[in-house]
């Protein structure tokens, strides 16, 4: 189970990562981990809005959206989110 390459979303306003195959994220648990790491979170029930270096949304299906159009910054934010929440690795074949 991995995340596909971080790529600009269709409207080119943010970077998006989608897990393959689909996963189910326990948002309550994720919220707890983020808050324990000192990261502010807004719980919208079906997604978390996470105030990191850039604003991030984490959906129940594991979809992650990072509001940045800078690839390096998006990678950095995504990797930190993955580590804090315990999400799967990025696909090593699609760095």
């Amino acid at each position: 189970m991995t995340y596909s390459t971080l790529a600009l979303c269709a409207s080119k306003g943010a970077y998006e990562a989608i897990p393959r195959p689909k996963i189910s994220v326990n948002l309550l648990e994720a919220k707890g981990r983020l808050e324990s790491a000192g990261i502010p979170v807004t719980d919208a029930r079906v997604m978390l809005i996470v105030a990191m270096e850039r604003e991030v949304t984490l959906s129940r299906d594991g979809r992650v959206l990072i509001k940045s159009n800078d690839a390096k910054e998006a990678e950095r934010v995504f990797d930190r989110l993955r580590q804090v929440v315990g999400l799967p690795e990025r696909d090593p074949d699609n760095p």
Partner: protein
Amino acid sequence: MSRGVMLMSGGIDSPVALHFMLRQGHEMTCVHMDNRPFTDDSPLAKVVDHLEVLRARYGQKIPMYLLPHGPTQIQLMRETDRHVGCVLCRRFMWRSAERIAAREGATFLTTGESLGQVASQTLSNMRTATASVSLPIVRPLIGFDKQEIEAVAKEIGTYEISTRPGLCCQAVPSKPATRSNLVQILQEEQRIDVDQMLDDVLRHATVL
């Protein structure tokens, strides 16, 4: 000519609809529902630039109200059925616009909707959404297809602004309802305090 309130999204359609209303001589006030954090800063920036283009074209002031919509979306996501989220969202937009109309002495509401373009723009959903307000609604683009709207947008100089990169609404459910019935929608709204939420929105309104 009369005074109306126009809902502006930052997309391709709403500035075109506004252009037609201004061309006909109506006095328009605009409302932008600020959907952050479910989008980024780009829709607001686009609306500001659209208005600059149209103000220059028509020599009108065209005031714009900026209303916070993100907190409403969060409340809807927490308390109501996601399947009908787009309809509930639209009902809040209409109600907010109607309140601004009352403040401005406007007698009608306007949008850039055209039939069947997105989930919220089926006939069924439009009917359910607009049952939340009593003012007449004018939809100058209702029978236009996308190519026709884009052609006008290019002609009036708003197309390039609308198509700049930006983030789509993240609050749209994966399978939004394309048919809705008012009974179900009213039941969903019983889970939330609609008047209180609207009061909060209007209390935080800013005029640009």
